């Protein structure tokens, strides 16, 4: 029986399979389909300082091998999260990680500070890469200096594991990764969605109310994999791979490229049971290849 457990920073995961923010609600919605306790962890929907109504509809466009979304961080704000949602999810037998978003540096800090008080949340994922909000989000994540700054400000108030989620919409992902590690990130997760667009030629209009939106799904997997590999080689902290993972083979590709763990996003919409299937598939792969521990996969890509 191969060992699937993995440690990222101080974070201990029973296996490397997490679910991606914005694609898994607060986990509760999946309880009909899977045993949440089988997962390495879940990253819940973005939490911001205040209530946000998100963008107007339509918010979704299907595209070849994926989809565009422009949800825009809809959520009821951190106080609501702490009071109403946290009590419902704190006893999940898996790691519950909160995706922290904001429009200003102060907002990120405020949210992180409040989540820091929640005993059952072992880590936050700082979302400096949302392409669907006018202020904040990707604007922070696309410039090394501001990425470092916001990470550093949050680092000062957040004492547990600080994951920073990177945007792929940049010339050099390694440069941003280094800045963020410099700012105090314990772990990096990548990638968030790639900025894209779709048009309805009959209406001669954009499909999304916001014109552009974030591309996710298998279409982005090759780009995500390349970035994970670059960042794994470029920085010393552990990396969580995200982007178009639909099955265990995809997950293993990311781990070979250097990811210590992975997140399953859009795939949850098509098969809400997919995350546990990926856990099982990784185990089967290890067994078939007689590999004792999933740790041996991390960055094991042979490039000679």
């Amino acid at each position, binding site marked *: 029986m191969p060992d699937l457990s993995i440690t990222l920073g101080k974070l201990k995961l029973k296996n490397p399979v997490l679910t991606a923010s*914005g*694609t*898994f*609600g607060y986990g509760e*919605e*999946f309880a*009909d*389909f899977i045993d949440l306790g089988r997962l390495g962890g879940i990253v819940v*929907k973005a939490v911001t300082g205040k*209530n946000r*109504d*998100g963008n*107007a*509809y*339509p*918010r*979704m*466009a*299907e*595209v*070849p*091998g*994926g*989809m565009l*979304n422009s*949800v825009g961080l*809809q959520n009821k704000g951190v106080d609501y999260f702490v009071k109403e949602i946290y009590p419902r999810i704190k006893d999940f037998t898996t790691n519950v990680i909160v995706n922290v978003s904001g429009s200003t540096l102060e907002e990120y800090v405020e949210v992180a500070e409040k989540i820091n008080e929640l005993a059952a949340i072992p880590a936050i994922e700082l979302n400096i890469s949302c392409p669907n909000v006018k202020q904040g989000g990707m604007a922070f994540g696309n410039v090394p200096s501001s990425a470092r700054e916001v990470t550093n400000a949050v680092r000062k108030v957040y004492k547990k594991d600080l994951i920073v989620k990177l945007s792929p919409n940049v010339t050099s992902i390694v440069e941003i990764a280094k800045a963020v590690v410099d700012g105090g990130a314990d772990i990096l997760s990548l990638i968030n969605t790639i900025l894209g667009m779709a048009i309805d030629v009959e209406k001669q209009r954009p499909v999304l109310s916001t014109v552009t939106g974030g591309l996710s*799904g298998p279409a982005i997997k090759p780009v995500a994999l390349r970035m994970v590999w670059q960042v794994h080689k470029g920085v010393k902290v552990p990396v969580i791979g995200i982007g178009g993972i639909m099955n265990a083979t995809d997950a293993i590709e990311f781990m070979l490229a250097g990811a210590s763990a992975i997140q399953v996003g*859009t795939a*949850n*919409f*098509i*098969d*809400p*049971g997919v995350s546990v299937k990926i856990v099982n598939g990784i185990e089967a792969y290890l067994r078939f290849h007689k590999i004792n521990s999933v740790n041996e996969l991390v960055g094991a890509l042979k490039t000679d």
Partner: protein
Amino acid sequence: MSARKFIQDFTVLKNIRLNPRHFVMELLAPVKLPALFPGQFVELYVEDSPRTFLRRPFSIHSVNTATNTFQLLIQIKGEGTKKLSSKSIGEKVNVIYPLGNSFTLPDTSDVLLIGGGCGVAPLLFLAMQLNTNGINPRILVGGKSKKDLLELDEYRKYGEVLITTEDGSEGEKGLVTDHSIFSKEQPGFKMIYCCGPDPMMKKVAEIAGKYKAGCEVSLENTMACGFGVCLCCVTQTLQGNQRVCVEGPVFNAKHLGWQKT
């Protein structure tokens, strides 16, 4: 609070083409069907379809607990519905269900159902349930032309059917909202259930307001998940953006913001 959801392989029992653009598919559940309610929908996975990625949502058209089946009434729009239309008897279809809320039962027996185009789909199931509750609704259906009116005989089993067509080829000429019952002072309905294109539903909601009748509408929206986690399907309501797939698809028309589409 919400009923348990399932992901199961159903078997195609019937696949009947009503006209070039519409078909009814009957699906057999692999285990006993849970309680299903009019207004709820299902998400089908479309196999072997390079140009579809996500599941496709369809309202439950009717349920037969005796045969453990439900039916869907589907309009062929693009790749996904086209692929589904060519499914053979005996083939499997993967289904997530039951999804969404349902129509509320009326506290009156003066009920009018209004369906435009493929919007009639959930109304058959609703009409059946109303009958079970001793209510014979009137059912107003509209289409561009006579050949767009589907399954009229089915509906007639459950209530009086009123018809409008845009070209006048059957029933009254015009849109459903032009029907002569809406020019009466006492049109004889206290509750409207409506499903169809947004502009039609908006107009119907206005009419309901005018007559001080209740009005529930079943909305569509672009859905990625169908079970509440992606927040892609929201509609503006008095309580802010709400998910059509969870808080809907059925909304009290008075609570809606009716965004432009």
